[in-house]
């Protein structure tokens, strides 16, 4: 085994960090969460120039065939910088949807995404899906779509939606693409926990021509599931990045903050808190390495078990690290003026999208035989 980064990976990670230190900051973040603009044209262009748009996608599709681990380095750097630039939500997720659909039409759309010509968002969940993508009441009937999707990232700033729905006739799932500006598409949005914007999209007798239907049947479900699994690993990477920053800032603070005439880091209880955070962070990071590796294998049960175990673990341990970071900071930790509280929100946000701890525990159990029934008759 080898956990070392290749020289290309080191370069990639370093360049991401350098880009972020030069182009992103806590002040930019504060502006961003206060505004309606999540896709900043200048930074969007720079990420394109850095090759990030193409990184997750195969060379045949015009990408750079980066591994899941490669892409996780970007997500991790974004998390460490507290950046909510929606690279994962508006590049990787729709792009992976298109790539996994794997049709000439989808490939053509993917090319536009990689080239930065058009922007996209994925509309996968209904308001009552919880985390079950299979559940949707967005229905295609007689060439017309009706229904409502929720949790659509930054819908107000993108050109196209890729939407998971089903056919009225035979309940078959479909994935279709539609311009946000199209008649029959309405949306409203609100700010969500991490400061980005999330939309509710209503289809009101949207006429859907056949060329907009990207995929039908179990292929549609598989493409959506694979895309979500892929970005779930990236969210885990972002959580690790954010938790690393929160931990390091807290350690630093414990060394300078004085109470009772001494640094609070000299109190044994604070020391043990920090050691617990540090040790837990190492464990969580190991799970991320595991998931970037095993999450990319062909076998669906194996990859989903790996991804779910990682997310389930992080939803407990990384959230606890973020909470403890606030506690050690005391009063200043619960204010909007310091970044620590924002890291906490950022991590909480990630812990709640595309499956929380319970969802992933349960999926892990399904994929590893822990739900299989025993036939008591077999017993001696």
């Amino acid at each position, binding site marked *: 085994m080898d956990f070392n980064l290749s020289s290309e990976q080191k370069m990639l990670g370093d360049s991401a960090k350098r880009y972020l230190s030069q182009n992103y900051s806590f002040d930019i973040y504060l502006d961003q969460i206060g505004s309606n603009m999540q896709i900043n044209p200048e930074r969007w262009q720079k990420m394109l120039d850095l090759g990030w748009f193409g990184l997750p996608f195969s060379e045949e599709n015009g990408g750079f065939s980066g591994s899941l681990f490669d892409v996780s380095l970007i997500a991790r750097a974004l998390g460490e910088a507290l950046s909510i630039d929606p690279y994962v939500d508006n590049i990787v997720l729709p792009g992976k949807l298109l790539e996994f659909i794997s049709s000439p039409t989808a490939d053509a759309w993917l090319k536009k995404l990689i080239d930065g010509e058009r922007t996209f968002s994925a509309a996968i969940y209904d308001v009552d899906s919880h985390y079950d993508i299979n559940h949707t009441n967005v229905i295609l009937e007689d060439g017309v779509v009706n229904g409502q999707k929720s949790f659509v990232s930054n819908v107000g700033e993108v050109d196209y939606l890729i939407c998971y729905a089903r056919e009225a006739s035979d309940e078959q799932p479909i994935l279709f693409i539609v311009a946000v500006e199209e008649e029959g598409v309405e949306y409203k949005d609100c700010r969500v926990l991490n400061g980005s914007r999330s939309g509710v999209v209503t289809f009101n007798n949207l006429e859907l021509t056949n060329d907009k239907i990207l995929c039908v049947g179990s292929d549609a479900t598989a493409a959506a599931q694979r895309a979500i699994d892929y970005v779930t690993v990236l969210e885990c990477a972002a959580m690790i990045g954010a938790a690393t920053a929160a931990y390091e800032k807290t350690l630093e603070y414990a060394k300078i903050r004085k109470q009772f005439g001494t640094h609070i880091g000299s109190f044994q209880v604070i020391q043990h808190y920090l050691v617990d955070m540090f040790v837990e962070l190492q464990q969580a990071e190991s799970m991320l390495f595991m998931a970037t590796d095993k999450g990319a294998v062909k076998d669906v049960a194996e990859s989903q078990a790996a991804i779910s175990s990682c997310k389930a673990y992080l939803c407990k341990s990384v959230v606890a690290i973020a909470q403890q970071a606030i506690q050690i900071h005391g009063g200043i930790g619960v204010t909007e003026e310091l970044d620590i509280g924002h890291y906490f929100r950022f991590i909480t946000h990630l812990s*709640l999208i595309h499956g*929380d701890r319970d969802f992933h525990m349960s999926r892990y159990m399904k994929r590893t035989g822990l739900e299989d029934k025993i036939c008591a008759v077999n017993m001696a």
Partner: protein
Amino acid sequence: MNLEFSDTEKEFQKDVQSWLSDNVPADIQEKTQNGEMLDKTLQQKWEQILGSKGWLATTWPKQYGGPGWNATQRYIFDVERAKAGAPGTSPFGVSMVGPVIFNFANQEQKDRWLPGIVSGDTLWCQGYSEPNAGSDLASLKTSAKKEGDEYIVNGQKIWTTQAHWADMIFCLVRTDSTVKKQQGISFLLIDMNTPGIEVRAIHSIDGHHHLNEVYFNDVRVPVENLVGQEGMGWTIAKFLLTHERTTIAGVADTKQEIERLKHALKNTRSGSGVRWDDPQARRRVAELEIDLMALEYTNFRTVASTDNGNPLGPESSGLKIKGTELQQQVSQAIVELGGPLSLAWDNKEAIGNMEFNKATRRYNFLRACTIYGGTNEIQKNVIAKMLLGL
């Protein structure tokens, strides 16, 4: 041992229920039940309603305008208040400066300040913490220099909840820097409209404005605003810390939060069913309910011993620690069980379920509850020293 409410108490409970059902304004009730924050107007409106009924300063003796309730009655009132969807009241006037005034102040001061508190007309805030005196309160630096019949106050307070609403602030100030640090502290009442006071907002991570920095720049305070003698500030501060407060555990509101969670789980569609169908969710509710029960009965023990005129037993020492931990756990459970619905931050219309939508702000807000009023770590240090003799 008798763990039932008496008939008189049950009667009292009915009276409270009935009064609440008639007197909680609808707009206040709706916001409170959705877990939203009240603005100053609504908060004061509710406190004045209680004030005019004589039910605001519930811990006060009758002679100062309190209702003369015992701890059990206060507990019953608090539970019924939360059940009725009515908000809690601000502690600074009623629970903090009030008892200080009627225990330490002279008659003139009592006559001047107490009526405004009892009625809910005067809003107070607390000037204790400073940037470099958080857990280590005695290190505070804000100075009050006597010049004639005035103190000249200079310095800065921080984490001052509701300073932007308050008419008055009670402050710990240093009147003597030549003696041991605890000995040079005095307790001063300051009108927030005095020139030289500047209030700057601190926004909390729930996105709201609760906290402030308060700057004092040559603020002139009449000497008659000193409570007790110079140098008594630390004694008064310690008195307040140990002052009986049977609502410190937050049982009533936590109970209501768990009910809210159950309601939300039952009323939120998930696939072809509802969130309640998830057995892990219900198991988590059960664990919280049982943890609350342990807290509630521990609180009952404190309430009962208060009413029996006994000193607080050891069981009361952990109420703040366990109470705040449970508040955080319940709040985290609501957020996590809401899943994607808990991501909502500033939606006006419900996304799936408004209770889940609003839960996250409270979750964020409540990260502070293990910090303020002495962090839980400080609480443990104190218990180790005082009770365990370590």
